């Protein structure tokens, strides 16, 4: 069932150019041989990981914090417009190993840069 959780409308809908990067690929097993080319075996589709950032006001940061900690509980997927394709996709926030879901940087009075990683579910 497609998720009914959406990226909050009160938050910026477009990621900033600053800090954006993406990756794509296929989940494969690559086995090196003693000699000659390695053998490859397809395992399935792989989630594409995007690093994105947003400029938010202090109030928006509070909304974002509630969204990640309460609405998503850190694990749920949600609908998000892909920054490159413009198509709505189901994504999840990718935490770092110690459960860090996003970083915030001070830009100026009442303005913050939020950066996070998301994975686009195949």
């Amino acid at each position: 069932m497609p998720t009914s959780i959406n990226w909050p409308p009160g938050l910026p809908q477009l990621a900033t150019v600053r800090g954006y990067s993406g990756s794509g690929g296929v989940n494969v097993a690559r086995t090196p041989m003693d000699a000659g080319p390695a053998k490859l075996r397809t395992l399935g589709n792989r989630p594409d990981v995007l690093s994105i950032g947003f400029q938010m006001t202090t109030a928006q940061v509070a909304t974002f914090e509630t969204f990640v900690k309460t609405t998503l509980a850190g694990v749920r997927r949600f609908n998000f417009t892909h920054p490159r394709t413009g198509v709505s996709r189901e994504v999840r926030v990718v935490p770092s190993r110690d459960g860090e879901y996003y970083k915030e940087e001070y830009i100026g009075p009442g303005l913050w840069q939020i950066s996070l990683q998301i994975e686009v579910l195949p």
Partner: protein
Amino acid sequence: MSRAFSAAALAQLYSPDADDPLLLLLTITAPNDVPGADVLRFANGYTTRLTGLETDASITAYGVVSRGNDFIFLPMEVTFPQADDAAPRARITLHDITREAMPLVRAVTSAPSVLLELVLASAPDTVEMSVSGLSLSVISYSRDTISADLVADNLALEPFPSHTFVPANFPGLF
């Protein structure tokens, strides 16, 4: 004992660039004495999202649909039975992060039965290899994994006749 794999499966096994993986399907049938006994179906790979199993609050489910049944993707390691004369014995380790199998493991009082099948991702309804008649035993589990032996009774190793005329069984004869 030889296995009758299809030409497509053999091509995938021998190809240096295999683009159609062989997937392992694991079917665990709970004993009848388990309340709410059910059949658990897992696969060691995935071909699709199992959206019918998903809710907003649930995890995202990937897996394989084979013959109308959903097999949930769960990373696992299986050591297959050796093709020799000994009683078949394999070992399986389920990486049960999301606790699908843990309630069954905690509830069973006798061995659940197990069916192992191999299918091609492109043709999940066609079983390439099947190992049936196995049961789970020597089950151990930790926070993240469940390990168990997959054993099969080898009737050829049972004593025959079942009773022998020895003093322990028939003292009146001696």
